[in-house]
């Protein structure tokens, strides 16, 4: 049974159809990557799954329950959490306060404190800067904060939207190795990336999106070696 099952999902912005019937599955424990050019509808898909964007047809099932009409609040509390594109940390709130916003719906004080400790262990820089305004962090630090904030919600499935965007190559490597660690610690991951090479390297399964549709799918290693993907997304062989 798939953890997340998206079936024939449609999203419209006015007259524009951003998703034209997308189907995708994420099995528990996997890293699934979603690659594709700008405007292919990757972010729309994640926003629709999280309940931020209105869906206009299809079905989304998370752990056997339909979340097609469920509020973002209930989606988060059921364990489906998103790290949005462009980090979107809260300026004006300290690093610590940002992390606590991730635990907004949780009531288990002790568990929250334990998770906070774990996050400080995983991202020591966040502990060092815990009282600093989040907007003063560098891009890489903000990405770590956005990921730490999402982890504070105790996700079963983490949606990551372009975590490597705008980061220096060395940081990109670090972020990807963190994603791998998070997955190994038991969190399933759906990753949207422009950096197709890295995204295919760490994923178990992958989808390629083109203008609102899934154009290709398959085990990540197979896609990485397919000629079509190499030419279109990996800059030739």
């Amino acid at each position, binding site marked *: 049974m798939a953890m997340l099952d998206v079936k024939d999902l449609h999203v419209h912005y006015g007259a524009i159809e951003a998703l034209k019937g997308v189907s995708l599955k994420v099995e528990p424990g996997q890293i699934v990557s979603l690659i594709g050019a700008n405007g292919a509808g990757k972010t729309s898909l994640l926003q629709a799954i999280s309940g931020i964007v209105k869906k206009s047809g299809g079905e989304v099932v998370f752990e056997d329950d339909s979340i097609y009409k469920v509020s973002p609040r209930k989606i988060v509390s059921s364990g489906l959490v998103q790290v949005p594109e462009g980090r979107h940390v809260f*300026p004006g709130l300290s690093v610590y306060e940002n992390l606590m*916003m991730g635990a907004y719906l949780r009531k288990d004080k002790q568990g929250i404190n334990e998770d906070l400790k774990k996050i400080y262990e995983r991202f020591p820089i966040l502990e060092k800067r815990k009282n600093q305004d989040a907007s003063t962090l560098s891009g890489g630090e903000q990405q770590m904060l956005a990921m730490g904030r999402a982890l504070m919600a105790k996700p079963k499935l983490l949606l990551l939207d372009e975590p490597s965007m705008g980061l220096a190559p060395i940081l990109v490597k670090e972020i990807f190795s963190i994603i791998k660690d998070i997955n190994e610690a038991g969190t399933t991951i759906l990753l949207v990336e422009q950096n197709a090479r890295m995204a295919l390297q760490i994923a178990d399964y992958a989808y390629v999106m083109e203008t609102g549709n899934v154009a290709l799918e398959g085990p990540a290693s197979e896609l990485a070696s397919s000629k079509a993907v190499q030419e279109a997304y990996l800059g030739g062989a």
Partner: protein
Amino acid sequence: MDQFLQQLVNGLSLGSIYALVALGYTMVYGIIKLINFAHGDVYMIGAYTAYWVTTYFGLSFLPALLVCMVVCGLLGVLIERIAYKPLRKAPRITALITAIGVSYVIEYTTQFFMGTSVRTYPPLLPNQSWTFGPITITYLQFVIFSVTLVLCVLLTLIIQKTKIGRAMRAVSADENAAKLMGISVDNTISFTFFLGSALAGAAGILVGIYYNSATPLMGMVPGLKAFVAAVFGGIGSIPGAMVGGLFIGICETLVTAYGNSMYRDAIVYGILILVLIIRPAGLFGKAEKEKV
């Protein structure tokens, strides 16, 4: 000099009231980017509520203050739910015009039921005053300072230290990201309206006692002045509203005392014009970049 100090005290008490009202403007703007022009009328309802509960139910000052805050808080929530929530995705100007409409509805509904006559209060506070050297502080002034101080401290604690306060700041910083954390944006906005309107309710009873009168249109001019105070402090900024309120109150009192009381309104609007020319973001405001 002695008179100056005395006028300063008078100005601070008037300014405290402006600060309480300005806080509501600034909080609402901070979270939904709306200048709630009906806010001055919520303060008027506070003054009328005080008149009702003290005249007909014989409440003393403190219980009356609490009732006014709760009534106005709920009124604020109601206004937001009915008038502004359906327009949340509409252009800003639509909501702004609606706010002006709401203001008229409240003013003339009150006038319809209460008439235009001036209502006065039973004596609520002892007619006492203390003299320190050249300065005399009346009991009422003391109450105004203390109530304002306590409410500002409470508000700051709520916003800085509580979960719902943190959620308010998160929603005001980034609404969509707040949704992704599972924060209910609607409830957070309602809570913001409740807090801001409750403060206006407190200002309503204080000013009602200060001038010993309540009239249906009493909210218009002080509402505008409190708005100027919020802009002066930097709209969206909580400390800005506090400082702005005190500053406007002091300016107005000093102009009345030393200049010409004919110009006491002119000076406030003059300040607005100067702020908009010299520093549109206000004292503590951050210049907002237009998003493309």
